[in-house]
């Protein structure tokens, strides 16, 4: 029940450009042996949570807000921590990014003083890469930076490399402790993996994955029956795509479901801006298979896979008939048992009465045939 409000808030707060500032702090406490190594997965998980939770942390109206809030201080084994700070003021070195200009000013919302500072203090072994996933749905300017903790400012000269995939990026902004790159992500080709490698006594690297939003689908197959209708739903939580397209698979091909196909069989409905429904009517066993829903964002496309299973009515009928048979058998057994026990009771009663009559008879003739009765009883 609380879910829908998240979407409403987010779609209100994201008009125009978002400025993201990501700072990465690497810190190495001197000689702590046997520290827990952070697996990239763990780091991913929390970071993803932190990042995608970013808009939902803002509880006020859909208008862009300037509240400061600290989210998620988490530690693993006491040695690694990270937190995500939202706010108009952040204690980061580096240029003040709120006044940066953007291209395509028509979509600009200047009252959005909203950016993210992201610090990671890492004390893992050298060579362990920290991976961060960043989800972008529309064109933004991004600054990614690697920041070193103050206590290592006196260390010997370090070589810092920024790479996109395998090619090195030349233009690195350096301040006293941080190395950053500024990127304008305007189309799909700019998305990818950006890595920052700091080479000193030990080597540290951080990888940023810039990607389009993932589609939320039910991973279990949708089960329907012949002659019935099926509803396939795809959601894009937090981000509103520009358009949705549905594909059905025919062998190994993907065929788009559009007006050229039968209109009375497929109905595509966009209930919310970020939820799409495909309703398939008059199902037959041929409709069984895999369906794809594709969301088009400004920066690329994202797909979700749905499986549809069409069963015949006989399938649930078998267990049903089995249960009915069991019930009939049990009822018959119980009734037979009751009839049997009633008959046995009646027989016992008849025998008892017979015994009583015998006793009365013997008592009547007690006085006369006393001894003979006793004999008989023996």
């Amino acid at each position, binding site marked *: 029940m609380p879910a829908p409000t998240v979407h409403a808030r987010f779609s209100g707060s994201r008009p125009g450009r978002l400025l993201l500032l990501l700072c990465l702090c690497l810190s190495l406490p001197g000689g702590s042996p046997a520290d827990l190594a952070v697996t990239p997965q763990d780091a991913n998980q929390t970071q993803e949570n932190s990042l995608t939770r970013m808009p939902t942390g803002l509880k006020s109206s859909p208008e862009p807000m300037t509240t400061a809030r600290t989210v998620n201080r988490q530690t693993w084994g006491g040695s690694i921590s990270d937190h995500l700070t939202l706010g108009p003021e952040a204690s980061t070195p580096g240029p003040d990014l709120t006044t940066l200009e953007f291209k395509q000013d028509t979509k600009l919302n200047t009252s959005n003083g909203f950016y993210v500072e992201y610090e990671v203090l890492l004390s893992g072994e050298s060579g362990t890469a920290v991976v961060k996933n960043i989800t972008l749905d529309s064109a933004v300017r991004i600054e990614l930076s690697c920041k070193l903790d103050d206590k290592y400012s006196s260390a010997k000269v370090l070589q810092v490399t920024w790479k996109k995939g395998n090619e090195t990026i030349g233009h690195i902004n350096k301040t006293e402790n941080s190395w950053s790159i500024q990127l304008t992500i305007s189309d799909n080709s700019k998305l990818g993996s950006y890595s920052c490698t700091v080479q000193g006594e030990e080597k540290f690297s951080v990888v940023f994955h810039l990607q389009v939003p993932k589609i939320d689908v039910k991973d279990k197959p949708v089960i329907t*029956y012949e002659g019935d209708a099926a509803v396939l739903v795809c959601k894009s939580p937090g981000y509103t795509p520009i358009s949705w397209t549905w594909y059905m698979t025919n062998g190994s091909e993907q065929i788009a479901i559009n007006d050229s196909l039968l209109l009375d069989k497929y109905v595509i409905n966009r209930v919310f801006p970020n939820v799409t429904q495909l309703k398939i009517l008059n199902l037959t066993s041929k409709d069984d298979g895999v369906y794809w829903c594709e969301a088009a964002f400004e920066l690329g496309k994202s797909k979700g896979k749905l499986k549809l299973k069409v069963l015949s009515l006989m399938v649930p009928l078998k267990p049903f008939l089995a249960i009915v048979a069991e019930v009939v058998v049990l009822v018959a057994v119980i009734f037979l048992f009751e009839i049997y026990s009633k008959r046995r009771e009646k027989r016992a009663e008849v025998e008892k009465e017979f015994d009583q009559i015998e006793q009365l008879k013997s008592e009547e003739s007690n006085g006369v045939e006393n001894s003979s009765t006793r004999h008989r009883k023996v």
Partner: protein
Amino acid sequence: MAPRSGPPDGGWGWMIVAGCFLVTICTRAVTRCISIFFVEFQAYFGQDYARTAWIHSIVDCATMLCAPLGSLISNHVSCQVGIMLGGLLASTGLILSSFAASLEHLYLSLGVLTGLGFALCYSPAIAMVGKYFNKRKALAYGIAMSGSGIGTFILAPVVQLLIEQFSWRGALLILGGFVLNLCVCGALMRPIALKEDRKTAPGLLEQEYVPEAQKQDLKRMSICSPLIKAWSHECLCYCSWKEYDFLLMPGFMVLAVSVLFMAYGCSPLFVYLVPYALSVGVSHHQAAFLMSILGVVDIIGNITFGWLTDRRCLKKYRHFCYLFAVGMDGLCCLFLPVLQTFPLLVPFSFTFGYFDGAYVTLIPVVTADVVGTSSLSSALGVVYFLHAIPYLVSPPVAGWLVDTTGSYTASFLLCGFSMIFSSTLLCFARLAKKIKRTHLRSLTNDTHSKHHIWTNGAIAYSVTGELDQKDAEFLAVDTSSYSNR
């Protein structure tokens, strides 16, 4: 069948308990599991949560509203026929709803038809347990009533699995087959004729006072029983009136009013515990865990409290145990607005769940104590009927209070006070009765306190004092009519 000398307290009685256990699973647990289907109905029919949730309300309401009908049928025809008919109806309702084409279709088939079927089964089965047990009545009820908790626990994942395998249509079909097991339970309910209904004096004197219930039983049995078989129209009406004359009993009226308030107080809590927990910052998993604790501890409360109140030391105070359980529940509700973190809500779940299971076990026992065993069936029908309106009215009222005041405090306080009022009402009624009796006894204090029993074969007299003279005359008249038969 020859009348038994007393309730067997075992033997076939345990089969009855097993049957009632299965009835509780098939009715209460299935009702609770219907809410698992709501997500599917919402997606399929494209309706919102409120309209789909009506199904659950209709089933619950129909089950409770038609409870008197169920006891009527089982009294006049037979318990077995009543329960089997109920099973067939409920099963038909579920099977029809698996072919539903619209939500309104579901309201009728899944709501009305299935609810009616459940109503025909529920109160007769519970009344049957009361007939078969005396010394271990509360334990038997505890085991029988624990079916709803255990059933929900087992059925919920099974229903989820069925929905994943066969979709909601197939799952409803198979559930319809499962509910057909109510017919098996019906077959188990062998009728029993108790001599206890025509009790003789020594049996009565085992208790410290003569409950009014027994007197009523004597009156009723002597007039009604030979005529029930005749099936003539006038005596049916006469018998029906005689069957329901416990309604005018002051003890029953007090019980009825207290049940109204108690049902009003306890129902919104199950609906609003999870939303309240979420609103104070508890996570989804933890809130679900709270509900699970509630369910499991409910089962434990059913059985242990039943066993406890069967102990000889507590048996005389069963009424007070019931009040205590309801009062404790009310007290828990009053504290709830103060509990704002998960570690504080867990003990609340434990306590509330335990006492909820406790008083549910004792409702039939207390009713039996007030009205006697012969009209237990009809009385239970009326008691469960009185549950229906508060169940229907209370959650929406609580929801409205939450919306207008903006917090859950007002609605929880209302629930708590309602339950505490229910238990204090019963307490005062009991105290008033006791005071009246001790007052009257003090008037006849000079007569000996010993009971003299003279027996003359089938007729037993007892004269304990001027006060009980009427009882003695009564007994003499009725036992003689019995011996004439």
